């Protein structure tokens, strides 16, 4: 077995991070309570069932993974695992676990728990499972000793390591004790917790949220004045969350509030807004299958007909950055100088003249309750009319839209929506959105291009970073040339927190809800 250059770099980064953690020791002092108001319900705490960034709080505060994404741009630091090695053929990943990690009930965390956790993920086939179902066979993961875990992949995988932080480890003995009818403890773990995370669950009320108490014996130790208690509440009404922040009822809230509410919060001395460029790309997803949408000329006409600057300046009030490609601006994989498309109705008309198929009304399916999605649809409808393309705008809740997107023949022609960060690799964006292998699962487009797929297949197995960079850049260029999607902006994250809070470490993966680093200002 050998360690690649990237692994060596990571091991260095990890040892630095761990050194800083070990210094933390028992320096922590009592730090009060942190109340977070979220617009998504915390109705399920199972880390192997839920997988959306909006509800990252329970996953990252109650549970630990082998590695963890922190900061922005995200960097992966060793967490439950101290290091790893990869075999020459890229199929065997061996992780060395820390000796001092324990679960909230005091039981030491061992490799058997890691094996149980990945088996549970594969068996439940929910949440993060789709990241591993193609690459790990059930029963193939081994625990040769209590502090060594060996993942035997079906084949080499360039993205496996980036998805390792999503293997959150559960207390196997505790979950097994609560299994019912072979359900892998799913019913029990929905309302309970079996983790080793920085905070231990105290109460969960699916209608309200959950509270957690700081786990003093957490392996990473504590320093400064961390919060002793966390309370994550579901507060659906935006106005109530905003007023609660201003009043001081809440110390934090979700970071994708409408921009006018951010401006309102800026007026309050009780609130600070932490700004970061996120990794959440706003895309007008194009269904590339139905005529004339399957014609690149028609799609290019569409791409020239969207008023990018008008949308960003007038509607988004310049609160976001133009993002010309499918990958966020702040990650590799986009060719240098990619300009993307600009608003030019003359060019749109020229492209339209090349379309031989009969035109038909195009359907835009906007997301109900997401004003940017609805506004983009309306704006696009008006500009497309100017080039003679009729548009029907439908507004549906996410449940309807996502259900339609499951099949090419039911997905609307255009869907304005966001692609969030599940793992930090261009494959999360350009690979998943446009690779044929992801049709019916994570695609937004049903785009199919053998040349693209050939590069994607290679990029998913290559361990050469330079080669992967080149391949993803080529794929991004192809998607751009074929106008397989309309890429508008990368979201800025405006995290609203109490002005008395410091130490928030935003990562697009944990979405500002990983609170172990935060504390009250002295």
């Amino acid at each position, binding site marked *: 077995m050998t360690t690649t250059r990237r692994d060596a770099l990571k091991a260095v980064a990890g040892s630095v991070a761990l050194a800083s953690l070990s210094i933390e020791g028992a320096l922590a002092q009592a730090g009060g309570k942190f109340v977070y108001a979220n617009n998504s*319900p915390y*109705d*399920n705490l*199972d880390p192997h*069932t839920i*997988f*959306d960034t909006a509800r990252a709080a329970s996953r990252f505060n109650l549970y630990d993974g082998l590695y963890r994404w922190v900061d922005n741009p995200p960097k992966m630091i060793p967490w439950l695992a101290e290091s790893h090695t990869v075999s020459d053929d890229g199929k065997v990943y061996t992780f060395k676990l820390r000796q001092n990690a324990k679960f909230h009930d005091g039981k030491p965390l061992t490799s058997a728990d890691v094996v149980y956790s990945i088996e549970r993920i594969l068996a439940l*086939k*929910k*949440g*993060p*499972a*789709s*990241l591993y*179902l193609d690459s790990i066979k059930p029963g193939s993961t081994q625990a040769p000793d209590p502090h060594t875990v060996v993942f035997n992949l079906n084949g080499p995988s360039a993205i496996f390591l980036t998805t390792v932080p999503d293997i959150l480890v559960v207390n196997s003995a505790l979950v097994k004790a609560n299994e019912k009818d072979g359900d892998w403890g*799913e*019913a029990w773990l*929905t*309302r309970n917790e079996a983790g080793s995370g920085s905070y231990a669950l105290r*109460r969960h*009320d*699916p*209608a*309200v*949220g959950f*509270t957690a108490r700081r786990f003093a014996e957490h392996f990473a130790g504590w320093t400064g004045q961390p919060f002793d208690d966390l*309370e994550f*509440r*579901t*507060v*659906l*009404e935006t*106005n*109530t969350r905003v*007023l*609660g922040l*201003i*009043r001081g*009822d809440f110390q934090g809230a979700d970071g994708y509030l409408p921009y006018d509410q951010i401006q309102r919060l800026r007026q309050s001395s009780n609130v600070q807004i932490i700004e970061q460029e996120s990794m959440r790309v706003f895309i007008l997803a194009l269904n590339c299958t139905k005529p004339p949408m399957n014609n690149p000329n028609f799609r290019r006409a569409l791409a020239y007909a969207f008023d990018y600057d008008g949308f960003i300046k007038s509607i988004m009030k310049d609160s976001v950055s133009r993002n010309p490609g499918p990958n966020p601006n702040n990650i590799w994989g986009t060719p240098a100088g990619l300009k993307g498309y600009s608003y030019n109705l003359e060019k749109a008309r020229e492209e339209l003249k090349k379309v031989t198929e009969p035109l038909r009304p195009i359907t835009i399916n906007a997301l109900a309750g997401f004003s940017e999605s609805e506004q983009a649809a309306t704006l696009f409808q008006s500009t497309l009319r100017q080039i003679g393309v009729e548009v029907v705008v439908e507004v549906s*809740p*996410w*449940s*309807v839209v*996502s*259900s*339609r997107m*499951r099949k090419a023949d*039911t997905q609307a022609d255009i869907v304005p929506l966001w692609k969030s960060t*599940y793992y930090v690799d261009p494959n999360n964006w350009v690979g998943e959105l446009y690779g044929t292998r992801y049709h*019916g*699962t*994570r695609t937004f487009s049903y785009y199919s291009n053998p040349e693209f797929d050939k590069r994607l297949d290679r990029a998913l197995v290559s361990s050469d970073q330079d080669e992967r960079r080149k391949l993803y850049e080529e794929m991004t260029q192809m998607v751009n040339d074929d106008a397989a999607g309309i890429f508008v902006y990368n979201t800025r994250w405006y995290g609203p927190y109490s002005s008395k809070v410091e130490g928030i470490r935003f990562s697009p993966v944990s979405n500002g809800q990983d609170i172990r680093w935060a504390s009250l200002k002295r």
Partner: protein
Amino acid sequence: MNWLSMVANRLLWFVPTLVGLLAIVFVLSRVIPVDPAVLAAGENASAAQVQQVRERFGFDKPLPIQFANYLRDIAQGNLGTSLFTQQPIVDDLASRLPATLELTIFAVLIAGLVGIPLGVLCGLHRNSWIDHVLRVVTVSGLAVASFWLAMQFQFLFSMKLGWLPLSGRIEGFPPEPVTGLMLVDAMIEGDREMIGSAFRHIVLPTLTLALPAAATVVRFTRNGVIGVINSPSVAYQTAMGLPRRLIVWKYVLRMALTATVTQLGLIFGILLAGAVVVETVFDWPGLGAYAVRSILQSDYNAVMGFTLCTGALFVLINLLVDMLQAAIDPRGAA
């Protein structure tokens, strides 16, 4: 028909009414172009995973069989499992119903306590300045949107004056429920601070719900009083020299309240199912918020469970209203 047979008759209609209600909701929920299995399996699920979920929840079976299976399960006390909370629907509903009941009971009480006296006042002083002023107020009360009223209350009483809390049912995270009715639980605990906190938290949502309801009660009571006070029986009682106070409080009010009681029952049912906006604005974790989320997520079992629950309560409340009416005016049961 005597009182008992009236009750038996109403109960006899209870089951078919609910089955009819469920049938309508079942068909409507299946018309929506959403595959609940896709939602339950998660956005990254493969086609095989989706199919597995579909088979597990029986969504792959023909609609009549799905409905028949659902009715069979209900008869066994099983409303199914929520696609998202993974909990039995019965548990989900049981944990949220008390919050809505508490809010609704208080709102109806306030609506009755405020609305009935004001309605009597308007009826007795028809077309006087009191009647005109209250007419303007009540029409405004009916016209105002509850979300606007809720936000104005928040701005005034929570943000500007700081008298009342902004949202939630109690300071901090709610304790383990005993009855689920926060005020009752606080009293059982004997914790004065908790009682005070629960009371302060319920004031604004209750007022938001109660004011439009009180406006309705005022209008109905006024009309009832005017109708009775102009009747021959009251003219006869006046001619017989009975004191006006006795006529009003013993005879007029009793007869006039028949319509008001019916209205209060309807209001209770409407508020129970329609407290959605108030629950959302005030972060009140009741049935309304649960129903909205279930509908948005196409959680079929949860939507059906909510419908069954509110439908059953509505029918029961109407039964109680009928019984109360029969007690007020025995001629109604005849």
